[in-house]
């Protein structure tokens, strides 16, 4: 077979899977913007203490409702607190809630879905019936109900938002596991004598990653949105902790005279969700082996 043009060196030059995905992702400017923005937020969250010009809770009743100026880049709120600083610290809160809530959904939902898909039968039935019940309640409403039951606070907020999304992840993971189980390459792997564990590690998990990754990225967006909504109606983060939704709620009554109190937090939320959505869309395209369009 010396006439074959594909040589070993050519095979080695091909990128590994992660690099391949990143390469494809880099082709989309929107996705790159999304990625960049998220990195910026993470940076703000981690280094908030050094980046923020003022402590987020520091009130200054002599400087309430200041418009953006050199001293207060985005102005001050109803207690004279610097809005920019509160936004920066708010990034920390939002990202925490977003990632941890999704983490909870992924672990709980993912495990449930994996068991349901892998073992099938009665276990599958039972788990999915419970999921059906949870899915009968619109997600935000479920989050509100759980948050109302648990009470205010950051951790309760994370749990409420996390649990409300569990059925979504359970379904996706179950679907992935089911479809891969039935694939011929799994059959082929069994036929050559691969053990269950090997099959799970080498075939099932890598092939189910794509939809899970996409869902998780979009899930962080949805979690942040839900968290903001919950804080807006008073459940969740308590003052003086800075949360973008709570800031919106606080500034609401002054909208006529001082719209900047609501403008900036809302903008922050919107840009974050936008970035995550762009990233999620980009990942969906980058991970699709069929290379649509």
């Amino acid at each position: 077979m010396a006439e074959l043009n594909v040589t070993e060196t050519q095979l080695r030059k091909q990128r590994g899977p992660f690099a391949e995905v990143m390469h494809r992702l880099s082709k989309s400017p929107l996705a790159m913007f999304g990625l960049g923005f998220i990195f910026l937020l993470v940076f703000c969250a981690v280094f908030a203490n050094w980046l923020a010009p003022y402590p987020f809770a520091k009130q200054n009743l002599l400087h309430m409702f200041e418009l953006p100026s050199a001293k207060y880049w985005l102005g001050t709120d109803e207690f004279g607190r610097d809005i920019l600083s509160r936004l920066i610290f708010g990034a920390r809160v939002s990202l925490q809630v977003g990632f941890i809530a999704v983490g909870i959904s992924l672990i709980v939902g993912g495990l449930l879905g994996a068991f349901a898909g892998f073992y099938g039968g009665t276990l599958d039935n039972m788990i999915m019936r419970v999921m059906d019940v949870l899915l009968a309640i619109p997600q935000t409403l479920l989050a509100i109900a759980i948050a109302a039951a648990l009470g205010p606070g950051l951790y309760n907020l994370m749990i409420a938002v996390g649990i409300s999304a569990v059925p979504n992840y359970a379904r996706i993971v179950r679907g992935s596991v089911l479809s891969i189980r039935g694939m011929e390459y799994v059959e082929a792997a069994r036929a050559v004598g691969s053990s269950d564990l090997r099959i799970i590690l080498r075939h099932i998990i890598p092939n189910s990653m794509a939809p899970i990754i996409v869902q998780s990225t979009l899930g962080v967006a949805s979690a942040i949105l839900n968290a903001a909504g919950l804080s807006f109606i008073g459940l969740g983060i308590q003052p003086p902790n800075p949360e973008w939704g709570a800031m919106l709620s606080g500034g609401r009554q002054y909208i006529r005279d001082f719209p900047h109190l609501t403008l900036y937090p809302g903008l922050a939320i919107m840009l974050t969700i936008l970035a995550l959505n762009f990233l999620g869309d980009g990942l969906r395209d980058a991970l699709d082996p069929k290379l649509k369009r």
Partner: protein
Amino acid sequence: MLRYIFRRVLFLIPVLVGVAFCVFLLLYLTPGDPAKMVLGDLATEQAIQEFREKEGLNDPFWIRFGKYVYKAVVKGDIGRSYSSKTPVMKELMAAFPATIKLSGFAMIIAVIIGLPCGIISAIKQYSVFDTITMIFAMIGLSMPVFWLGLLMILLFSVKLRWLPSSGFDTFKAMILPSFALSAQAISMVTRMTRSSMLEVIRADYIRTVRAKGQTERVVIWGHALHNALIPVMTIVGLQFGHLLSGAMLTESIFAVPGLGRLMVTSIMARDYPMVQGAVLFVATAFSVVNLLVDILYAYVDPRIKAQYK
């Protein structure tokens, strides 16, 4: 077909019982004594005990739950509001129309704007229209409804003074909340329609129709659309759930006297029967809509219809 419908309706019952169970469980686990909440901190111990007896709060969990389900199914009685002392069902029925109208209008707006935009974006993929539409769709998806609502109030009520910022009784009052609520739904419908159309347009059978010498108009608006709309229908149905949730926040902003506002105030007031009833109500409405969409889907897609003959 009828058997399928019957089975699905039958299946709804355990789901709703399950929902009631979850809500009951949640409220059971909530810290705080409802008796104290309702009667106030200065209530006497005797008054508290009387209240607890009367409301059956001292019974074990399963008995309470059982009584609740029994009363709900047999008498349509899902309790009495702690705050207003009126039956929950009555309050829900009073608040329901506003929410349905709000969600309904938002849904209609979403379909009227979303469908054509999605179709045209798909036909003219990569054009200026497509790009702009996709950008707007992305923004619409990413904007929190409560912020959008506030912005719309700022622009249309405060600055321009064209539309009222609260209430829901006049037609003018309904415009802002309906549009604010519809933003996310418009975006979803546009995106889904576009991607569904794109997929269908590339299908082999569309090529067959063209090979027959059919005009492009009939190819797209007849064959392609018919096939593309089928999955979009499911999305539209699911959107209703999001709209119901979104209505809650929208109602708070625009002071619309609907279920959402009722729910928010009840949560704040720890009015358990009200919250329970409202969640159950919304879950029922959501499930019924989903069921209707599924049935419609089976009707419209001959492949599914055949399965359920």
